[in-house]
């Protein structure tokens, strides 16, 4: 598991290095807006469901996605908690377990939606299913481990698989999401599109 962790971290460092070292493409057109504010808006206001149809028109999926991703971050946090043998207390762990059960359930719903809708099936590749299954399984096994320590070998297998798979497929979006939103904010900020301007009357 530790070797897998090192491999995964190494891959993250490699991708981060590429993103940072390649930087942003030079813009020769005269700047018309505030790029810093636009990048901030890209991560805040632009993500607000009222500004984004992908969220406002799909609130159940959007909510399930948010819970699923929060569960992913929580399970990663707990991975390090377990790794460094930190004891946050059983009461807190029970709350975490409950949330991970909920996020795991969200992951299953998202997976079922992907399998059920023909449009989504057409858009999906094996990586989409594998990534979801690995992350959902990791969240659920983390939740179970809190109550059943004897599941530790299964937990190690799940964590190892997830860490090894990370560099291969879409899980990399954990890094590229931030890079994409940064670039989008930069692009719209340079042209004065974002943050949106007030409309005069």
């Amino acid at each position, binding site marked *: 598991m530790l070797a897998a962790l090192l491999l995964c971290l190494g891959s993250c460092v490699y991708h981060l290095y590429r993103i940072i070292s390649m930087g942003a493409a030079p813009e020769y057109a005269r700047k018309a807006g505030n790029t810093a504010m636009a990048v901030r808006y890209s991560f805040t206001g632009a993500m607000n469901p009222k500004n984004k149809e992908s969220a406002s028109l799909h609130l159940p999926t959007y909510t399930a996605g948010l819970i699923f991703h929060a569960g992913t971050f929580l399970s990663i946090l707990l991975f390090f908690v377990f790794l460094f043998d930190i004891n946050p207390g059983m009461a807190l762990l029970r709350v975490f377990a409950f949330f991970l059960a909920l996020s795991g359930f969200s992951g299953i719903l998202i997976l079922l939606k992907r399998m059920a809708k023909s449009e989504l099936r057409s858009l999906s*590749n094996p990586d989409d299913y594998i990534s979801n299954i690995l992350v959902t399984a990791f969240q659920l096994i983390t939740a179970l481990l809190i109550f059943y320590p004897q599941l530790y070998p299964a937990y190690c297998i799940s964590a190892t698989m997830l860490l090894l798979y990370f560099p291969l497929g879409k899980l990399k*979006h954990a890094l590229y999401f931030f890079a994409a939103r940064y670039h*989008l904010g930069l692009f719209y900020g340079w042209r*004065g599109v974002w943050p949106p301007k007030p409309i005069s009357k």
Partner: protein
Amino acid sequence: MKREVGSKLLSHVNACVHCGLCAESCVYYKFRPGEHFVPGKKADVVSSVYRRYNTLSGRMFPWLTRARKLDDATIEDMVDLLYGSCTMCGRCNKHCSVGVDIEFLIRTGRAMLAEMGYVPETLQKTVDAAITTGNNMGIPTREFIDTLQWLEEDLQYEVNDDKAFIPINEKGRNILYTLNPREPKFFPLSISAMAKVFYAAGESWTLSTEMYDVTNYAYFSGSLDEGRIIAQRLCDEMHRLEAKKCILAECGHGSRAFRWEAPNYLQKEFPFGVDTSVELLAEYIREGRIIVDPEKNQEVVTLHDPCNLTRGGGIYEEQRYILHKCVKNFVEMNPPGLDNLCCGGGGGQLSMSEYNERRMGIAGLKAEQIKKTGAAVVATPCHNCVDQLIQTNAAYKLNVKIKTLAEIVADAIVLENEEKSNT
């Protein structure tokens, strides 16, 4: 693909999670729901090629991420998805759950196809016309000058001043004003409208007979080399005429192509100012250089925001300011501004007759938007949009008038001699 520098391409090809939530943001999908028109699918055909040749999993296990070889089947899909199923309106960018610049990926895909010679013939012909004749409609210079001469007479009559004129190829003027070749060819009154505005503002301006075309269809075809040639010509004309500022006529993609893309095509910052005529009209009104009276435009007016000007160029406040000042009854479409729906004519669709059925299908969405406003006039600062809206007007029996902003402003102008005769 490697022409794009920086980590922008790397980031966007790796960020999509195939959630499909972008579907409803696309006018093609709204018109005909189905997997084919989901923006994520269009972006993925580009990303899949990237994965095949640039990622470990794509090279070793292409089935895992459905990484595609750039073979005939892929190219056929790319042509239909990237040219035939997208107006490059960029609405999906704003609504993507992750923040993938889908439109950028579409443009990258078009650039790849252009490099390999797969631009649809109809679109390529428009680019070729611009390259070989200097304007995308192939208007001979003599014909253009004749048109300007009768427009000048029209202007003199309109402003009741025998000395009013349309300057041609004058050096050292403040403004070099560009045109969409559709103006001299089909809509000359929009030229005289702008000439009237310049007259009222007392502007120092000129038109060029050598290079007046604001459009750059190579932006749509994806050909960076041809895009550069067209952009360089306008740059050269700015230098030749020693103009201080280039004012881009009401043309969404033309404005975007020269204001935002051309400096990157040519990899240099322009030593002269570049503004759109929309910004200039708003400036004239704000600064009191022209006096306008909204009572002169009594009909209900709505606004169609051109995608390239609005989402692609940040101009969405100015046109509203102008309309509030120049018309009595202005009503917004729903959704407006940054969320406005493409009219269907963008992305080179007006040139690509092979996709007409889809284009006019999308037009139905715009027709519904217009109908709901109850407006008698649709204003839009883009000649491509004007063309598409005129066809929409006929096909969906809307019975509305389509006008440019310059035409609306010109109608609202109160000239000095008018003021005097009223007092």
